[in-house]
């Protein structure tokens, strides 16, 4: 063993001297679980936006309020069918080429033709006109500026595309430019000294994708990473006691929900869905698995989704006896093995979920156990998340467990409309139609009138609460560990930015 140790130390010595000891700390390193694999903004837009490499026409602050970005102002025509975005002057891309309306229109046209939020908006054309970009619509759509703040509508330079029209570089207008990109694990950034806005205080930054939560917690603890995002509950608890690190937990508008196929004979009656909901011990899951007891979802929209959360709605409860009663009303009786039976058919269903978010299989295991209490047998399939939209399309899905972000765009209406509008959505209602909700959602998307919006939002929230086309389980907390020497850290609940351009090292 001594020999072995000696050999190990000898080997280690080969790699000395260590630059990390000599170099003065200036570079800020971010660690996060998400890999960045592509130059394509339609694929990697989230990371490119959050690292402030590229920017949107429209920006948003931490509350979701829209702010000028690469567009200084915007307006709709009186009929609501034409939107004009006035572009900022004197902006250049990282490679020195000019940011002009033609470049913006080219980039946005590409976003529009690729799958993404813009493709779903009622857009009929994008063009450059004078020093502005003009969108034409087929019907009024008040949420267009919010959609132009989304990660898939960031502006990339025309020079970022190769001869085949495929993106082959990360060239934008943001405060950071790319020094080195090693897909899928890391991006090294340098300060863009010719940035049009306030220049970042730090000269360089790095992004490292570390898939294992333990690795990220260790990176934070050892000081190898200065900002670490998405920690596991245990690692978070541990880091709270480490002096060199500050921990933050910010509620975000992401919700773990259970999609139920309402067209299936087991779940077509709302009482069946209510029974399933009543049998879920949300407090237990929030306490033991996510370890934020206050994040047990009392309703679908979390408090972080200001304007959509309704404090007046009663909390979704946990009552096994009431759940059994509802199922008995529907004609289910317990069989020999305790599993409910009706017309010779056992209440045995398949839940689809995926391992990319490690807490989901754990929650599936918890549901399996909790539903057995009311006589529902749950099989769990942990596979690719694409099985969920696929099962939605071919109708074979029973229930699915996933985490849904209702603020993909600063205005949640886009996502909610997609999920609960006519026909339901791949990541929303299935086999469930409600004309009241559909009408209310159409009204919300077409108007900017706050009073009218609030009234309709309250209606939508109440109906979803009673009918439960999707059953909410827990709300998400965005967990972050930050080196204590780092100042000016702002955690964006919308996860649009890591806030690199505002941080600095304390003296």
């Amino acid at each position: 063993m001594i020999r072995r140790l000696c050999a190990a130390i000898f080997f280690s010595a080969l790699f000395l001297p260590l630059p990390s000891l000599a170099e003065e700390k200036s570079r800020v390193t971010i660690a996060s679980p998400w890999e960045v694999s592509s130059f394509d903004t339609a694929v990697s837009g989230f990371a490119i936006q959050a690292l402030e490499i590229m920017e949107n026409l429209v920006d948003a602050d931490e509350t979701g309020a829209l702010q000028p970005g690469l567009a200084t102002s915007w307006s709709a025509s009186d009929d609501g069918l034409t939107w004009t975005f006035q572009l900022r002057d004197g902006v250049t891309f990282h490679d020195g080429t000019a940011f002009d309306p033609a470049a913006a229109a080219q980039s946005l046209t590409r976003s529009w033709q690729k799958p993404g939020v813009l493709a779903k908006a009622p857009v009929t054309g994008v063009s450059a006109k004078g020093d502005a970009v003009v969108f034409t619509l087929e019907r009024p759509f008040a949420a267009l500026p919010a959609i132009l703040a989304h990660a898939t509508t960031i502006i990339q330079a025309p020079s970022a595309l190769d001869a085949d029209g495929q993106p082959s570089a990360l060239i934008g207008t943001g405060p950071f430019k790319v020094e080195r990109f090693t897909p899928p694990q890391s991006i090294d950034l340098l300060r863009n000294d010719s940035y049009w806005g306030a220049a970042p205080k730090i000269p360089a930054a790095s992004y490292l994708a570390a898939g294992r939560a333990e690795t990220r917690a260790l990176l934070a603890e050892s000081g190898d990473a200065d900002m670490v995002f998405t920690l596991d509950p245990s690692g978070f608890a541990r880091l709270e006691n480490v002096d060199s690190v500050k921990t933050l937990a910010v509620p975000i508008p992401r919700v773990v929900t259970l999609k139920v196929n309402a067209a299936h004979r087991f779940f077509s009656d709302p009482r069946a869905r209510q029974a399933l909901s009543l049998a879920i011990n949300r407090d237990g899951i929030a306490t033991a698995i996510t370890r934020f007891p206050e994040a047990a979802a009392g309703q679908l929209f979390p408090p972080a989704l200001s304007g959509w959360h309704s404090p007046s709605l009663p909390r979704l409860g946990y009552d096994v006896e009431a759940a059994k009663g509802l199922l008995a009303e529907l004609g289910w009786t317990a069989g020999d093995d305790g599993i409910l039976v009706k017309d010779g058919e056992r209440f045995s269903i398949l839940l689809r979920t995926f391992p990319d978010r490690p807490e989901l299989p754990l929650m599936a295991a918890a549901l399996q156990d909790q539903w057995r209490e009311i006589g529902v047998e749950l099989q769990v399939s942990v596979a690719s998340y694409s099985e969920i939209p696929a099962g939605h399309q071919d109708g074979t899905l029973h229930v699915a467990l996933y985490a849904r972000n209702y603020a993909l765009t600063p205005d949640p209406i886009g996502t909610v409309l997609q999920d609960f509008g006519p026909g339901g959505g791949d990541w929303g209602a299935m086999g469930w139609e409600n004309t009241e909700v559909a009408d209310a959602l159409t009204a919300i998307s077409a108007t900017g009138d706050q009073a009218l919006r609030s009234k309709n939002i309250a209606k939508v929230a109440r109906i979803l609460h009673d009918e439960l086309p999707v059953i909410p389980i827990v709300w998400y907390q965005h967990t972050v560990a930050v080196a204590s020497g780092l100042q000016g850290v702002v955690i964006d609940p919308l996860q649009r930015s890591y806030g690199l351009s505002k941080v600095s090292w304390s003296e």
Partner: protein
Amino acid sequence: MTTARPFLTILAQRALQAFIVAFIVGIVSFAMMQALPGDAAYRIAAGRYGYDMMDAAAAEAVRVELGLDRHWIVQLFDWLGALAQFDLGRSLVYGSPVIDEISVQLGYSLLLAAGAVIASLLIAVPVGIAAGLKPGGLVDRVTLAISIFVRAIPAFALGVVLVLAFAVQLKLFPVAGFRGPEHLVLPSLTLGLGLAAVSNRVVRDAVADAMAAEWQLFARTKGLSARLSVLRHVLRNASLPVVTYVGVQMAYLIEGVVIVETVFAWPGIGHALVHAIFARDVAMVQGTALTLGLIYVALNLVIDLACRGIDPRTRSA
């Protein structure tokens, strides 16, 4: 399989083998990707857009863009035709040329594999020689026990222990990442320790065998000192199985380090292969499998030549 072959024959045999491997790997990986359940368009769309953005519309767009509704024979011949022009195509998920993806990731994998082999040799050779000089002695028995123990510990547990000791407590090396040579140390050591657990026994056996062999006795009767005879004969003869074993290790390392890559956030080809299979990225899977297969053949060629260099008997006749 006989002992001696001319140099050119070795080359020709390996070239033929490379061709066969390329063909089989291509066909097999293609066939298996076709046999996978589930709709490829959905899987690819999921890999591209992430679950917040992925839906049926995105999947249909992918299907049209990549022509996934064409007959599988057409798709296979497309790939083979492109391959004949040394074009591995573009990744279905990332859109970038497969050759670019592989060359980056393979580079990192080779670096890690080389680091691991060096680490394992640095540990295994001295330990193995010490144990092999006196088979059945105390050193031999203690190192055997330690070897079995290390071999049984899962790589990630070893990794976490090393990170705790060297990165968090001693702050000698970084936890994860790959910016500089110091990042290579802990993952190499994790892998190297696991390898050394086996290879120090190979060294020990080879040394013990060589010590016992007849010509060794002969060398002693010739009057050479014990030290010299060890150096000249034992090590030379013992190095044959070791070289062979190192080659086998390299092949295992290049593909088999997924776990260490995951723990240390190291961009490698094993990691890429896992992702490509789950995202149904046929072009990437074929390209990766082909590269790994050819590397295996190349490694064997190198081993053949190295053995020829070490042991003159394999050259004669």
